[in-house]
């Protein structure tokens, strides 16, 4: 052991000396050695990080030289020793320096640990710490998760039947949706990507309101202007979904900045997937949030897939959680299928964000059980049994059910009653939404600006005249 240490310090000395040209007298003997037998060994896994490992064979030469120039070496020794304690002053602060050239590894020895409270059987893990939930909250959380699951499957079927044009499910991510929403208050602003309708559900958006948006009828708050699942509701502090990926992340930072200026006791949460973290907006937003010290929670749903791109093709870092510290953002990795873990983490994140005015990054590991959307067939790029395993064995809803049942807060009668009721409500909501009128043509031109300008008024007039002149070309049931 001691020999190794001496060797490495000697090899550094050798390196320094060779650089300083102090080895002139012995160089000839060295070259002689070279010709005889190559002293350099090929870099092995052990010494690949230590570029001077090759010099270990030079020990004999150095030891003979030692007696000849001890004085010089003493000087070098003391200098080296002094250097180890010095710091450098650069813009950005003081930093200690090291004479050892050591690269930080691109991959860690161990991946960042994942916070979990419930095991796969829905039992609380022995030593876990979590935020207690009351029966009322827990039952609401579970009911909303079931509602979300049912809503997703009914809407998906409706799309397959041609009743709506498009849908994207959140199957497998119910815990993320509901538990994160439950840990926040209604005053906290939500900037979603598109797989978080559960947050809106928790806040009181009705099944009818969801259906209205999907059918784009006159009761849709978006006035029929967006594709299905692009929900938005001002009264629920849920900002309208935009189809562009990760553009909501800087929006969230701006909103948090606004909250900070108003000194409100609220925070912002924004959701995005693993794919969204590749967008430039994600990186800049995290950077800004850290620099400006604003209360925002960055919630990454790392579900393993960005349409057909697996995370191994998306990034080579240890997931998303390690990117937080790179920008100076406090981060945590949680089990995305564990309701209580998410609830606890978001609750804590909210506290920190508001009291310390700082951003927090939460990476929730999960799996996208459904297809990316109704325009996708994920069996084309991933094995069916993988999907099925995650759907059944790792279902977050079933896992949480086990926990509330073990507390005596739920039973199978409640379950069947809830599922039947929600399904019935959903079918009714779809029927009503389907029959309702579409928005009138006038709504094509409103809200582009606060007041329609003259050119839009002209265009509206022109369109109405065209419709009157060619009634057979326009659907009769579209109101004007």
């Amino acid at each position, binding site marked *: 052991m001691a020999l190794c240490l001496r060797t490495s310090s000697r090899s550094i000395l050798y390196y320094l000396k060779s650089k300083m040209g102090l080895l002139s007298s012995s160089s000839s003997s060295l070259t002689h050695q070279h010709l005889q037998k190559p002293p350099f060994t090929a870099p092995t896994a052990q010494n690949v990080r230590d570029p001077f490992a090759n010099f270990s064979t030079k020990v004999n030469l150095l030891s003979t030289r030692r007696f000849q120039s001890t004085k010089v070496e003493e000087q070098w020794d003391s200098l080296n020793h002094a250097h180890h304690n010095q710091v450098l002053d650069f813009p950005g602060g003081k930093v200690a320096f090291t004479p050892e050239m050591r690269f930080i590894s691109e991959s860690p020895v161990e991946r960042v640990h994942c916070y979990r409270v419930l095991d796969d059987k829905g039992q609380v893990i022995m030593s876990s710490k979590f935020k207690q939930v009351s029966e009322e909250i827990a039952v609401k959380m579970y009911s909303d998760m079931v509602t979300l699951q049912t809503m997703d499957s009914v809407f998906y079927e409706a799309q397959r039947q041609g009743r709506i044009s498009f849908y994207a499910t959140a199957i497998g991510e119910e815990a993320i949706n509901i538990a994160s929403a439950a840990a926040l208050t209604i005053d906290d*602003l939500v*900037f979603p990507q598109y797989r978080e309708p559960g947050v809106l559900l928790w806040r009181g958006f009705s099944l009818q309101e969801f259906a209205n948006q999907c059918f784009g009828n006159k009761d*849709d*708050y*978006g*006035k029929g*202007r*967006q594709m299905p699942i*692009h929900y*938005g*509701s*001002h009264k629920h502090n849920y*900002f*309208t979904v*935009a189809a*562009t990926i990760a*553009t*909501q*992340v*800087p*929006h*969230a*930072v*701006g*909103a948090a*900045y*606004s*909250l*900070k*200026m*108003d000194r409100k006791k609220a925070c912002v949460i924004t959701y995005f997937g693993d794919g969204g973290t590749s967008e*430039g*907006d994600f*990186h*800049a*937003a995290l*950077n*800004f949030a850290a*620099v*400006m010290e604003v209360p925002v929670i960055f919630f990454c749903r790392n579900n393993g897939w960005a349409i057909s791109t697996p995370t191994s093709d998306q990034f080579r870092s240890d997931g998303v959680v390690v990117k937080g510290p790179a920008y100076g953002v406090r981060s945590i990795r949680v089990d995305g299928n564990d309701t209580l873990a998410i609830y606890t983490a978001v609750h804590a994140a909210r506290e920190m964000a508001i009291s310390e005015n700082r951003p927090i990054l939460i990476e929730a590991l999960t799996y996208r059980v459904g297809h990316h959307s109704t325009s996708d067939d994920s069996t084309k790029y991933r094995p069916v049994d993988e999907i099925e395993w995650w759907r059944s064995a790792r279902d977050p809803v079933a896992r949480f059910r086990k926990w509330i049942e073990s507390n005596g807060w739920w039973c199978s009668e409640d379950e069947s009653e809830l599922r039947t009721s929600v399904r019935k409500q959903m079918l009714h909501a779809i029927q009503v939404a389907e029959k309702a009128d579409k928005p009138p043509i006038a709504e094509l031109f*409103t*809200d*582009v*600006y*606060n007041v329609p*300008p*003259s*050119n839009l008024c002209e265009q509206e007039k022109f369109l109405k005249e065209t419709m009157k002149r060619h009634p057979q070309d326009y659907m009769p049931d579209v109101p004007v």
Partner: protein
Amino acid sequence: MATIVGAATALSASKSFDSGKLHLPSRRSLSISERKGSFLVVRSDGSVVHKAHRAQKLIANAVATKADSSAASTASKPGHELLLFEALREGLEEEMDRDPTVCVMGEDVGHYGGSYKVTKGLATKYGDLRVLDTPIAENSFTGMGIGAAMTGLRPIVEGMNMGFLLLAFNQISNNCGMLHYTSGGQFKIPIVIRGPGGVGRQLGAEHSQRLESYFQSIPGIQMVACSTPYNAKGLMKAAIRSENPVILFEHVLLYNLKERIPDEEYVCSLEEAEMVRPGEHVTILTYSRMRYHVMQAAKTLVNKGYDPEVIDIRSLKPFDLHTIGNSVKKTHRVLIVEECMRTGGIGASLTAAITENFNDYLDAPIICLSSQDVPTPYAGTLEEWTVVQPAQIVTAVEQLCQ
């Protein structure tokens, strides 16, 4: 003299009067510099241009000259004199005083005061939070501004140079212009995006961008271009007060224009064009820096016996077709002078709009003078020729009025 000045202050809302008052001194100053060495002769030779001459020329167009200020003491004139960038700052400051939700964000806008000093002193007065220095990520800080606007603030996003806002195109087009519409009117975005653009003095292609043509199709935004200290302040205030997203185009070379503006508060209309010089023979439509080239050419044209009507369109989206239309109905001839590129420029849309609406009133096809479809070269001589020069304007009017 006193009556004109008095009337000007009483009718401070009427822009045409003020701008009419403005051009009396500049015409006088121009004739002085013209005598020094004919700009036009040098042009047609294609020979080396004396840069000093050019610089004098441009500044002389709009700066209150020494002759003017010595003629009457400043104390007797109402209003106060300032440079265009100071006018922008004054408008900004007045709005920030008036409404605590107004804030500024951009690169180096805080303690540095902005690369063109438009925000100088504001960070000290309002604090770092209201005048925010952002890291270099245009798309993202524009996105931040949009998020802040949706949550009740009125941010002004400054692009250090308009060209950098190309990086923000996604946020401007897909979110800024769209979210009010797609949310069904639930979320509004009262944001102002501003910055200097246009061809400067040998700044190179990347820093000589004219983005008005790229942005003009985006539904949901309004675009205005300021050209004088008076309308710069007025448009800045109007843009901040507007509920819609507004893009305010400034020009790098116009920041040092000096003008006397009223002391009392005024706001310009975002959708109105400015009558710079009423006339009878031909309508010349222009905006931003080209206004000054047009006015210079107008001197020559007046000497030659023409009576051009010059309108600074100011509102690039939507066009003020009312003012423009009235002018076309009067003169029956239209010349558009712009700094935009020829293809898909503001002039192209304006030509289409006028032809569609006022074709019956035109006696001749519309002539549009724009920059060529080339990136702006660095070399001074080349750069000068990518921008429309007064000589070309004079020739075009002569051609139109044949």
